[in-house]
């Protein structure tokens, strides 16, 4: 709303300056990028970054594809944040750890399969198997979490479950440390036909696989929420638990289902992580968790399509942002700033559009 933007107080002035600055940095960075793409020796590009090198088409494509594949993964995790937020109204901080549990489960299962020789001989079957196992374990984790920690807190002030979820996150992370050890662990090698860059646009098969699996999972979830009775119950519970109960909806069971579905999605995402990076450690869940949350917020929390879009946005931003914006601006060592870019995106989007890109504006009544 235009009126919202008209600065009234000192703080508003400052925020306006920040907004302009943020947009300015992005714009100048992009312009410099375009300039250096036209010609590296372009005076404008040289002026801003004397060491500009520019990107080749292949490099650019690589960035976009890895951004999309990671973004798809973030999107899947974001769904869990978004659904729980929609129904219970708090951020389940520990959801990132559910994702880590998925990646760990996948690591253990796939290594066992590899020991048995099945990983190589029947890769597709093995992959399906570990996806299923991981979904089951994650669903279980999420459901236990709800039962033990969140159900008793349904009526507590909103910050209480949030703090609890931080505790759970800590607990799960360190459970992994004490049970499985603090070192990073590897997935078995992926088959060559998957990792090789395909002639088709020269994209790695793993990344295509990740995008496809994420799209499938997303579609399934959308059908569940929009087309089934369970989904209708979920939406009703999200809006008014008491009245949903009055309609005969079993509120507790519906909330458990929400956690279960979110957990399952995180389980899929965990395997995708394994496929993409082949290495997992106890804090694997932390950063992707926060970024997935950022995706959910950027997309407008509570909005499933928005979460996926937000995930892709964050994924793309963090993979291309450093080289597209920061590098042309003359920042050195940009790859270190990937995560900083992701967080800056979160802050930037909330500065410009407090309800996220696709979020409905919450009315005063809803917020109360």
């Amino acid at each position: 709303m235009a009126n919202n933007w008209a600065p009234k107080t000192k703080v508003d002035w400052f925020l306006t300056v920040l907004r302009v600055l943020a947009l300015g940095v992005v714009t100048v960075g992009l312009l410099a990028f375009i300039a250096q793409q036209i010609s590296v020796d372009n005076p404008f590009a040289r002026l801003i970054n004397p060491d500009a090198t520019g990107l080749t088409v292949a490099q650019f494509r690589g960035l976009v594809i890895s951004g999309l594949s990671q973004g798809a993964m973030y999107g899947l995790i974001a769904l869990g944040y978004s659904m729980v937020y929609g129904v219970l109204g708090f951020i389940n901080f520990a959801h990132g750890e559910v994702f880590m549990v998925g990646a760990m489960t996948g690591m253990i299962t796939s290594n066992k399969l590899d020991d048995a020789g099945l990983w190589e001989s029947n890769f597709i079957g093995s992959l399906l198997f570990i996806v299923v196992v991981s979904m089951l374990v994650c669903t279980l984790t999420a459901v236990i979490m709800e039962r033990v920690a969140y159900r008793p807190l349904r009526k507590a002030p909103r910050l209480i479950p949030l703090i609890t979820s931080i505790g759970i996150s800590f607990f799960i992370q360190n459970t992994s440390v004490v049970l499985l050890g603090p070192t990073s662990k590897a997935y078995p090698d992926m088959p060559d036909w998957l990792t090789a860059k395909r002639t088709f646009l020269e994209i790695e098969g793993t990344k295509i696989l990740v995008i496809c699996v994420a799209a499938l999972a997303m579609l399934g979830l959308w059908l569940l929420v929009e087309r089934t009775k369970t989904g209708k119950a979920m939406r009703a519970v999200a809006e008014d638990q008491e009245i949903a109960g009055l309609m005969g909806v079993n509120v507790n069971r519906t909330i458990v289902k929400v956690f279960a579905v979110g957990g399952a999605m995180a389980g899929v995402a965990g395997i995708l992580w394994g496929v993409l990076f082949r290495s997992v450690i106890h804090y694997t869940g932390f950063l992707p968790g926060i970024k997935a949350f950022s995706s959910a917020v950027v997309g407008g929390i509570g909005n499933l399509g928005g979460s996926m879009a937000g995930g892709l946005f964050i994924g793309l931003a963090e993979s291309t942002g450093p080289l597209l914006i920061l590098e042309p601006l003359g920042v050195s060592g940009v790859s270190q700033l990937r995560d900083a870019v992701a967080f800056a995106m979160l802050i930037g989007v909330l500065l410009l559009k407090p309800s996220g890109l696709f979020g409905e504006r919450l009315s005063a009544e809803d917020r109360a």
Partner: protein
Amino acid sequence: MNGNPLLDIRGLTVEFGGLRALDGVDIQVHEGQIVSVIGPNGAGKTTLFNAITASVEATGEILFEGRTLLGLDANQVTSRGVARTFQNVRLFANMTVLENVMVSQHCRTKQGTFGALFYTKAFRREEAEIRARAEEILGFFGTRLIGFRLDQPAAVLSYANRRRLEIARAMATQPKLLLLDEPVAGMNPVESAELTGLIGRLREEWGFTIVVIEHDMEVVREVSDRVIVLDHGTMIADGDYHEVSSDPRVIEAYLGQGATTK
């Protein structure tokens, strides 16, 4: 009435996602008046209050003492001299009765960090003044809210006393214009009769100009100099109680055919 109105609303429009909650409303309230706003649910009465107190964005013009209120933050509106109560009582439930009234003198006081940290004379004087004023205001409601009640959390108050405390809290901001949102809702007839009398005294003894939203036509008839009727975000009537209650449009939209006016 002569002179400029205290509150001058012109063409006030509020939209929620394409839906017009208020559509070009013009209202003038002169100093010392008690004006009632009535109308069916969803007519935009509370939205009108929200627009005046800057809790929602509005277009048009709201002049208070000749200066615009639009574009201000809610707290700035309050410090200009407009205070309100809420339809569904919203006290600071875990703060004591006294603290509730003390805290709303915030915009009339100025001691900051420095005074607090060094416990200056000015700080102590101001604290004492805040407290004295709070007790004076609470005393207006009889003995109900003073004495041992002062240090009790607002949560233990009865429903009627919570409504009274809300009014006291609004009074503590030292307003010129007091907006009361359904002050007698949920009260029994005895209590609402008493509060009706109190509204009159608020004007006489404290000099407030008052706008009241009310469903209880009894109260409306009792207190108002003027009645404004809203329906679907537009004003359909403006006049004294008898004019308004016999207006066919008002009967159609609000009072209902069976209603008898006395």
